[in-house]
């Protein structure tokens, strides 16, 4: 099991944070293009999922899976979007994403008056806490072979 990469988008679609760990292959486009593509895809998939749903949905879009990886999506009521790509063995990362939000983003970004909330996060403290947290997760443990 492993974690490949992680994104945070604000409600306006700005990518606030990107980090990667065991990502072996890049998308071949610039990071900015990739962020835009990612946000656009999430936006579309979210509205598609809501529209097509046969009943009223509670949580909406949570994740998708390919034969190689899984994308986990968590959105707070304030419109902050946290995205994590893992391999297939990871299971639900919803709690982990919520934990990142409540114990790292809120603590080290929201409560830091020098961090602007609609700009990419520059805080080194935040980045190191995030890295530390991800590396300490049990799902991070084994490297991809």
């Amino acid at each position, binding site marked *: 099991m492993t974690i490949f990469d992680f994104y945070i988008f604000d*409600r*306006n*679609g700005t990518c606030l944070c990107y980090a990667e760990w065991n990502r072996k292959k890049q998308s071949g486009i610039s990071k900015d293009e990739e962020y*835009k593509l990612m*946000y*656009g895809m999430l*936006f*579309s998939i979210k509205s598609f999922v809501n529209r097509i749903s046969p009943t009223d949905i*509670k949580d909406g879009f949570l994740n998708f899976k390919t034969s190689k990886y899984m994308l986990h999506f968590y959105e*707070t*009521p*304030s*419109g*902050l979007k946290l995205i994590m790509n893992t391999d297939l063995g990871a299971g639900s990362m919803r709690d982990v994403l*919520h934990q990142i*939000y*409540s*114990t790292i*983003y*809120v603590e080290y970004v*929201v*409560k830091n008056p020098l961090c602007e*909330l609609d700009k990419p996060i520059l805080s080194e403290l935040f980045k190191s806490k995030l890295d530390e947290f991800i590396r300490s997760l049990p799902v991070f443990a084994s490297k991809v072979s």
Partner: protein
Amino acid sequence: MSRQTARAGDPRKVNGELFTLTYGALVAQLLRDYEDDEEVNKQLEKMGYNIGVRLIEDFLARSNTSRCNDFRETSDIISRLGFKMYLGITPVISNWSPAGDEFSLLIENNPLSDFVELPEGHTALNYSNILCGVLKGALEMVQMDVDVWFVQDQLKGDNITEIRLKFIKRLDDAVPAGED
């Protein structure tokens, strides 16, 4: 006993009187700086707004609530969870408008205005106007545009402190470039 230690160990908690007095000092300083009640109201609201947009994230992280289905649920969460969590009070919700888009929060003992007596000549000052800003800022972050204002204030001799909220519209998510 466990409660005592929990309180001492929680860095988020400060002495209530210290908080009240700090707020009082802030308002007094604003009055000295701006010398105009209306202007002070505006500044307090602005400060509150800036607090609100960040406070909501803390609130969501701690309460783990999901999105409200209607404005009534919102009013309930504001009073039962929001005010309780940050000010330790639970305002009474009343005076719903027939359309269900306006309500009042009735506050019996506002912790911000403990020890406070308004001096003569400040009839326009809304001493606790920061609360309006906080509510507006916080609700805006969860896609609700609201108007918030003071109707009555115990500091002005009214029986109760009343804050009124009016729902204006839902704000939508930003659409990424090239989509509709």
